[in-house]
């Protein structure tokens, strides 16, 4: 049977992708951030998951205000990098895992999650930057990817509790899949940042560190963070952190932290990365 063995929480700042694409990872500005990603890349190479479920949000790339799914799961064979206005990132096409993705979609709907099933979904920096962070610049991505896209742009996004429960249902579904697959889940977005308004540039490192700490020490607190607290304390775009709760829900209660990295700033954002493994 498939096994969900680990989760990664990581920011997905487009500037991080641009630094990779434009060979700037060794500049004074970016080096401290990328140095901290090295152990994560080694971990990824050593663990070599067959499939990674990447929980992310679309940023007006695949979806517009015409249609706003709360949770969309990508079941296609492949997903093209989206043109976000600069032309698509020159990264490999993202290969899906339709069998597992459809199995997840079916299991989740029967478990009363109201998924949107996506056969066509270009993927933007929300998904490709975490791949760049974890895998560097390979010719093809070293794992299959199941995109799980969460609305965090149109208020209201799903609650932290709903996300956490979705994670639990994903875990159950993965482990009922009759193939010997090693599966990881990434929760992406955050950490504290605000891109918009006169308060743009907000960073709340105390909030972020406490968030990283409580992913292993006090998940219950995180699950109950209301939208208004994310907005106020972590910034309007820091509210993306709710997506990390899906990743956390998919892991054991006593998952342990094996690595973390926190750096300010990446563009306008506090960048964090954490690796959690099931015991």
């Amino acid at each position, binding site marked *: 049977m498939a096994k969900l063995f680990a989760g990664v929480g990581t920011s997905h700042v*487009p*500037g991080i992708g641009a630094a990779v694409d434009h060979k700037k990872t060794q500049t004074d500005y970016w080096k401290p951030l990328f140095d901290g990603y090295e152990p994560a890349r080694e971990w990824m190479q050593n663990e070599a998951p067959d499939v990674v479920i990447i929980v992310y949000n679309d*940023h*007006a*790339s695949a979806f*517009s*205000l*015409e249609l706003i799914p709360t949770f969309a799961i990508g079941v296609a064979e492949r997903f093209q990098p*989206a*043109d*976000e*206005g*600069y*032309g698509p990132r020159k990264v490999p096409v993202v290969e899906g895992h339709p069998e597992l993705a459809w199995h997840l979609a079916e299991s989740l709907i029967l478990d009363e999650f109201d998924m949107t099933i996506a056969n066509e979904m270009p993927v933007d920096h929300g998904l490709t930057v975490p791949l760049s962070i974890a895998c560097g610049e390979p010719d093809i991505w070293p794992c299959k990817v199941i995109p799980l896209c969460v609305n965090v*742009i*149109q*208020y*209201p996004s799903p609650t932290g509790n709903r996300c956490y429960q979705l994670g639990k249902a994903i875990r159950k579904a993965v482990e009922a899949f009759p193939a010997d697959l090693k599966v990881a889940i990434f929760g992406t977005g955050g950490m*504290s*940042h*605000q*891109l*918009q*308004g*006169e*308060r*743009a*540039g*907000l*960073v*709340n*490192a*105390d*909030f972020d560190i406490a968030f990283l700490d409580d992913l292993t020490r006090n998940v219950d607190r995180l699950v109950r963070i209301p*939208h*208004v607290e994310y*907005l*106020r*304390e972590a910034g*309007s*775009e820091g509210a993306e952190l709710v997506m990390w709760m899906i990743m956390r829900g998919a892991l054991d209660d006593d998952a342990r932290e094996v690595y973390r990295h926190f750096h*300010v*700033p990446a*563009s*306008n954002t*506090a960048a964090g990365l954490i690796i959690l493994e099931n015991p």
Partner: protein
Amino acid sequence: MRKDREYSDIPGTYVFDPEHSRQGYHLNMFCMSLNKEANREQFRRDESAYLDVFPMSPEQRDAVLQRDWIGLLRLGGNIYYTFKLAIFDGINMQEIGARMEGVPDEQFKAMMINGGRPIQGNRYQKEWNRSG
């Protein structure tokens, strides 16, 4: 924006809630259209003519033409959409941040390098009123 929301007292923050989304629908859909190179080309050729197909308010249209970044938000824009216009102009997110706050780009960049805008004093509108 509605003033009776639990997040209405967060300063300098335009939550993209239902009212905001309704107000900015066509403005944001214009921005989204810049994802396509063919559309970017047309917009480059004649901004005003390109905008004619999007039923925006005159204020929204002016804010686009004048690159009034904070005005765009106040008129229903969402930053992920309005940023498409910044991408079009070749402006990055920190420069937009500076222009929304109304400070020089270098000042905003320095603030970020020094750890970003602190949360202290920036949680509640009343904190801004006092200091303003």
